């Protein structure tokens, strides 16, 4: 009962801080909520200021809702939303779109002559639901494996792993124990079943038939493979060893001090190494894949920009949205926060490709095997279930097939529930 009181408190907060209709002639005030915080918020705010300076007819007011994302849901529920929102996760987009909470952007995009192929295909896909575009993206991240070159030389690995078998082999060669058979270093530990399932050639949802495919044989294979690391290296020992790891964002990060040979990470690792391990000799390669799997595969996600259906100033909101997700702002924002631009022209511009890592990451993001959240309304719940299955299979030693069968059953029910509503 205590929480219902908080919910209502939120309503009041939202009512106090939400957008109010404009009166008078000029300029139109647009409220914009973002989930970025800290220095990322400052950079986003700088862009908003630049927009305001160049557009006398519109004034954008930016607010960070970092740490209180529930406010977004409640704003939608109360119909008192800001005009533009970037505090919506890609995995929530379809759920909101299905329930009519978002403005379809198709006609605006057409009027502003923006084309689908400006975006990487995976990104463009994740912005769609049932044939309409509901969001825009300004940032994205790549996933790949970084490796310590020094450790690879010591272990005698001369060829970068391209297949799962080669990855397993490299992981074993990098692993070192002390006299008491305690880890000095381990080679690799895979994580993120949602991504590895794609790498193994699996899928989570069949767009055409609308069917849940959680227990797809390839997904099961991927989870079995992940669990094999837990068995081979004794997951309790691995966890014990991991508890001695310093924060990845510090000089004692496990990759920086050689406690792991390979690290499943993203392009942000470049800033980290610059800051915490200047002398580290390291390289990177795409996630290796098994026979029948997908090369250069990974998952996309992140924040998306939307215009809620209840927005009162859609024309002005679009003008701002189009600019903040346009080439100039995307380029500056991604450069500022060290993310990969989802716009192909920007990602391919010398400003980004002059860094070999960003050229590589941009290439991965625009791969046909880079997948965003499927266009289904319950992906947020689905993700939790996938993580749960991974935890139970890898850490708890449960049967991967059984865990994914459970997910299949639960998600079929969730899907029926969600679609029955309408």
């Amino acid at each position: 009962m205590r929480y219902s009181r908080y919910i209502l408190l939120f309503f009041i907060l939202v009512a106090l801080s939400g957008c109010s209709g404009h009166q008078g002639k000029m300029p139109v005030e647009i409220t914009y909520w973002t989930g970025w915080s800290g220095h990322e918020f400052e950079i986003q705010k700088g862009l908003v200021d630049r927009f305001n300076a160049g557009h006398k007819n519109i004034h954008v007011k930016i607010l960070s809702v970092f740490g209180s994302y529930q406010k977004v849901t409640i704003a939608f529920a109360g119909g008192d939303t800001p005009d533009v929102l970037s505090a919506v996760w890609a995995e929530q987009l379809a759920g909101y779109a299905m329930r009519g909470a978002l403005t379809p952007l198709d006609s605006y995009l057409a009027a502003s002559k923006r084309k689908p192929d400006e975006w990487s295909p995976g990104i463009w896909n994740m912005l769609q639901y049932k044939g309409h575009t509901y969001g825009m993206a300004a940032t994205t991240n790549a996933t790949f494996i970084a490796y310590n070159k020094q450790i690879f030389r010591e272990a005698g690995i001369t060829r970068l792993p391209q297949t799962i078998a080669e990855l397993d082999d490299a992981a074993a060669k990098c692993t070192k124990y002390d006299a008491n058979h305690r880890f000095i270093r381990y080679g690799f530990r895979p994580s993120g079943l949602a991504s590895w399932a794609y790498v193994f050639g699996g899928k989570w949802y069949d767009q055409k038939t609308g069917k849940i495919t959680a227990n797809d044989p390839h997904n099961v294979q991927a989870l079995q493979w992940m669990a094999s690391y837990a068995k081979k290296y004794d997951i309790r020992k691995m966890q014990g060893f991991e508890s001695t790891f310093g924060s990845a964002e510090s000089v004692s990060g496990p990759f920086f001090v050689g406690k792991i040979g390979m690290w499943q990470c993203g392009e942000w690792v470049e800033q980290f190494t610059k800051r915490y391990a200047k002398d580290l000799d390291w390289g990177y390669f795409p996630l290796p894949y098994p026979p029948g799997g997908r090369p250069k595969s990974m998952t996309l996600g992140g924040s998306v920009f939307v215009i809620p259906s209840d927005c009162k100033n859609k024309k002005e909101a679009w003008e701002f949205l189009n600019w903040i997700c346009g080439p100039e702002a995307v380029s500056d924002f991604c450069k500022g926060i060290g993310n990969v631009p989802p716009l192909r022209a920007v990602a391919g511009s010398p400003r980004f490709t002059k860094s070999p890592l960003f050229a590589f990451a941009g290439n991965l993001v625009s791969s046909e095997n880079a997948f965003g959240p499927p266009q289904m309304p319950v992906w947020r719940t689905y993700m939790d279930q996938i993580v749960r299955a991974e935890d139970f299979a890898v850490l708890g030693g449960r049967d991967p097939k059984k865990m994914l069968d459970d997910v299949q059953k639960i998600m079929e029910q969730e899907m029926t529930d969600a679609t029955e509503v309408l």
Partner: protein
Amino acid sequence: MAKQIIDKNLQRPKKSKAARRNLFNGLLFASPWILGFIVFTVYAISASLYYSFCRYDILTPPHWIGMKNYTRLLTDDVIFMHSLWNTMYMVIFGLPIGLVLSLALSLLLNIKVKGISIYRAIFYIPTLVPAVALATLWMWLLNTDIGLVNVLLSKIGIAGPGWLNDPAWAKPALIMMGLWGIGGSSIIYLAGLQNIPDHLYEAAELDGANSYHKLRHVTLPMLSPIIFFNLIMGLIGSFQYFTQVYIMTNGGPQDSTLFYALYLFNRAFVDLKMGYASAMAWILFAITLVCTLLVFKTSAKWVYYEGHTNE
């Protein structure tokens, strides 16, 4: 004075002008609370009862589905059953440990030694720390490798467990953490202890009672209303266990700390299944009510109120 007013009212059932004005003024002064109570409590509770029979995602209007949420919860949701078990674990193991230790602490704090008020303050201070700050602090204390708890254990040659990373140890870790806050209930016990008249102890001593006898036959019976109160409050609190795990573990590892209230919250605010979550809230209410009533039922057997005789 009060008696006179009551008598007057009894004699004259019809209220006088002044009394009516008094009533009106009284209600007027209480109206902020009454309004708040109606809007934020009565309305919210009734709405949740209605929603519990609906499929409701808060973005589209609620859709009546009858008992479906309840039947699904009780027959087909393994995670729900697991979260219920986790919560019962805290009630069955955590609650008695907390009650016994806070009672023991209050007995210690009742000893008349020099500087006792300082000790009392020291044990009470942790309860002043907000739950969120406490949770964050304990995440550090319970860290497997660098946490103070395991560092101290290693000093005496024990390799501490993974605490919050180990499904077998996560709940015991939370119970241990809960003991940090027993100062609150100890203060209540202490007030009760000081109300026990000395002559009872003196009489017992004359009859040759030792310390155990005095505790068993004087202190505990005299304290039973307080124990009863702390038991009821602790029971309700255990069923609502939420903040700490929301901050510290979010239900992990492997659902070992997925408590009822956390699962409810996730269903409501992560999955937007408000109807389902409302049904969960009402089931929790029913469980808490039944448990509380059971405790009340047994109380006649063991709770002693001075001046009342048990029939």
